[in-house]
């Protein structure tokens, strides 16, 4: 099969309605500084941060206000200048209450002193660069929020050959990376160079789905220019990818671009690759070049529940309420508010939750337009979940195992390979909440592991 049409894709996957038209042509807008921001101390994978400030402290924009212990952790910064008014658990996009620092704005929006600029950023030592990235609180901005400095520290023996920037943006509705690629292309390329320097890699790729041809051509011409400006040679290739969900999954991106398959249970570095999101590269550049920590990101606010869908540059900690006000408000009574895309995003119960580092978009469905997960029927064995599963596993089984509490059998049927991309539940004509079955089974497996039964 491979090679006949030289398709830039993987097996399985599905074509989803695109829904990006509302915002893909809109340039990134800034919004007023919010009156207060909520900075959760956990916006990353790993140990949560501990607060470095107390209630009543005055903080500046970009000031580090939380830091975690150990290596797999990150830092958080105040995204506005003002006063710490509260440190307490606060609703978080994951649905839990997470210890957060609430800062009230003084309206001045003053940067912290001594931002360390580096004009000659390509000659900084890798270790120093990683320190800068850690201190800037940079994590994977694609949604996983894995600390970037950890990702950029693979063991030597892994022999990293390639860096891939992920600009696939395969979730419907979301256009934040798309706009960033068009409007901040040279910063992204420079960020990629910094990442390649850290890993001493000679070849980098930028993978972009072919529904973003404008971004592909902008990045291509930016690369051409940057090669002629006399800077060190970096070989960077932009790859147009088939439009197919989940093209933006790390493993599938690598498969599409390099034809390498990350073995089950392993990581991209096991096949010599490190993948970073477009937005992460942009944040790396800002941190290394200008000393600016990660305090803002681009968020697409869209859906039929939003009056004026937009791509906004938003301070971390801005509440959804404020975001939506700045998009003209709701069209009608909102029914569902999703943080992230409709396939993997999390439905929110309150608009008080803040934008965090991994928030790529907010999708609002207005009254009577959200899919209500109500009744579901038995599996009729149509096979759509299997035919479209990008991991080549059999999602139909998990519902049956879950209903019969057969955790071991589920584990033996490649349960842990599941990405939770949502295709199985999307395609299921019986409306079965397959992803939910899988999550529940996974948590049962982890419980068993913890209690030592596995």
């Amino acid at each position, binding site marked *: 099969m491979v090679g006949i049409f030289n398709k830039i894709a993987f*097996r*399985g996957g599905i074509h*989803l*309605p695109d829904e990006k038209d509302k915002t893909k042509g809109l340039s990134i807008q800034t919004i007023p500084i919010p009156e207060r921001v909520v900075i959760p101390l956990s916006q990353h994978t790993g140990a949560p941060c501990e607060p470095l400030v107390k209630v009543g402290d005055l903080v500046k924009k970009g000031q580090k206000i939380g830091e975690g212990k150990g290596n797999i952790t990150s830092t958080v910064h105040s995204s506005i200048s003002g006063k710490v008014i509260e440190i307490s658990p606060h609703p978080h996009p994951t*649905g839990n209450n997470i210890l957060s620092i609430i800062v009230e704005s003084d309206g001045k929006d003053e940067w912290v002193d001594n931002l360390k600029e580096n004009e000659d950023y390509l000659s900084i030592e890798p270790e120093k660069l990683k320190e800068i990235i850690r201190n800037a609180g940079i994590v994977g901005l694609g949604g996983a929020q894995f600390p970037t400095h950890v990702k950029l520290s693979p063991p030597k023996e892994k022999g990293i050959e390639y860096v891939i920037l992920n600009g696939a943006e395969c979730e*419907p509705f979301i256009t934040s990376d798309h706009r960033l690629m068009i409007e901040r292309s040279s910063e992204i390329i420079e960020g990629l160079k910094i990442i390649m320097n850290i890993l001493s890699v000679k070849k980098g790729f930028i993978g972009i789905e072919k529904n973003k041809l404008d971004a592909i051509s902008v990045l291509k011409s930016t690369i051409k220019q940057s090669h002629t400006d006399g800077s060190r040679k970096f070989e960077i290739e932009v790859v147009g990818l088939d439009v197919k969900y989940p093209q933006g999954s790390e*493993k599938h991106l690598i*498969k599409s671009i390099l034809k390498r*398959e*990350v*073995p*089950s*249970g*392993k990581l991209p570095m096991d096949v010599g690759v490190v993948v970073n999101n477009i937005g992460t590269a942009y944040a790396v550049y800002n941190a290394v070049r200008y000393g600016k920590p990660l305090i803002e990101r681009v968020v697409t606010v869209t859906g039929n529940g939003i009056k004026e869908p937009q791509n906004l540059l938003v301070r971390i900690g801005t509440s959804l309420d404020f975001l939506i006000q700045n998009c003209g408000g709701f069209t009608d*009574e*909102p*029914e*569902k508010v*999703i943080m992230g895309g*409709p*396939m*993997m*995003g*999390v*439905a*929110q*119960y*309150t*608009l008080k939750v803040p934008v965090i580092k991994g928030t790529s978009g907010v*999708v609002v469905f207005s009254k009577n337009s*959200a*899919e209500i*997960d109500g009744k579901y*029927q*038995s599996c*009729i*064995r*149509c*096979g759509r979940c*299997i*035919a479209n599963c990008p*991991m*080549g*596993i*059999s999602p*139909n089984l998990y519902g049956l195992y879950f209903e019969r509490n057969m955790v071991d059998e589920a584990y033996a049927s*490649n349960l842990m*390979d599941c990405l*939770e991309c*949502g295709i199985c*539940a*999307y*395609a*299921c*004509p*019986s*409306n079965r*909440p397959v*992803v939910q079955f899988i*999550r529940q089974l996974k948590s049962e497996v982890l419980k068993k592991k913890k209690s030592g039964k596995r």
Partner: protein
Amino acid sequence: MEKDKEIKMLLVTPSPHIRAEESVKDIMYSVIFALIPTSIAGIYFFGIPALVTIVIATLSSMLFEFTYQKMTGGDETVSDGSALLTGVLLGLNLPSGFPWWGTIVGSFFAIVLVKLLFGGLGFNIFNPALAARVFLLISWPLQMTTFPRPAPLLAGESFRLSVDTVTEATPLTAVKTIMLSNDLSKSIESVTQIKWFDLLIGNRGGSIGEVSAIALLIGGVYMLYRGTISWHIPLSFIVTTGVFTTIFYLLNPGMSANPLFHLLNGGLFLGAFFMATDYVTSPIEKRGMIIFGAGCGFLTALIRQYGSYPEGVSFAILLMNISVPLIDKYLKKRKFGG
């Protein structure tokens, strides 16, 4: 009230938050829609009795499902179209002159015994309509093999309003009779010399819905185009039947019908496109489907050539239905990175 608006409830459900539009009901109705051409062909050739048989089968199937669920307190599933589909398929699998009470017994067998007692849609082992066809064939062999003569209107015949007492052996039965009689004075060639055009449009004896190869093909292509079924089962079924009838034809000169005759006769097209492709009772993955279809084809050819029944499609599919769990277990797709 204004205050209520402030704290209105947002809907929280697990991801994904969008769904493909196709429901179980849509799938069932797409199959029923695909059965319209062959139903029309059946009514065209066999008249009102064919229509009556289909209607009785359909109504009684839905009634049995409804009644059973009322009695057992189960969820209402009549509206999902599955009972309707089973009824239509059962009707199409019967001879046009089949007694009405037999049709109702068949519906009961299909819906209650084969489907609902096993747990309802999704849990039945056998294709309900097909199991009922075989049950009726074994229980009332005479009525199930009495096929009224087709009456094509275009050939000047009048539309049949009641059951024609003139019956006609199906071509496969005629062949089998000669084979079993072992009478070499009669030549199978003489039986198989039917006009190919008649076989294609369905001008032959047989069950209501199985006679017209063209009409079945139209429905099959519609389902393939729409993605209701994939090509794997019908193609491997029909090709394998062709391959083995060819082999048997060459092995038994003079004592077997030619392969093309086999392909266009009996219930092969109805079986390959509509019965063997039933999701619940066929393999769930593509490679398994090919094995399943090939098994159906091989058994069909084997029974037609060496069995005592003239037709083997129904038995072949039912036998392969039983092997589905085994096929599914051993023919899994390769997982990503595994």
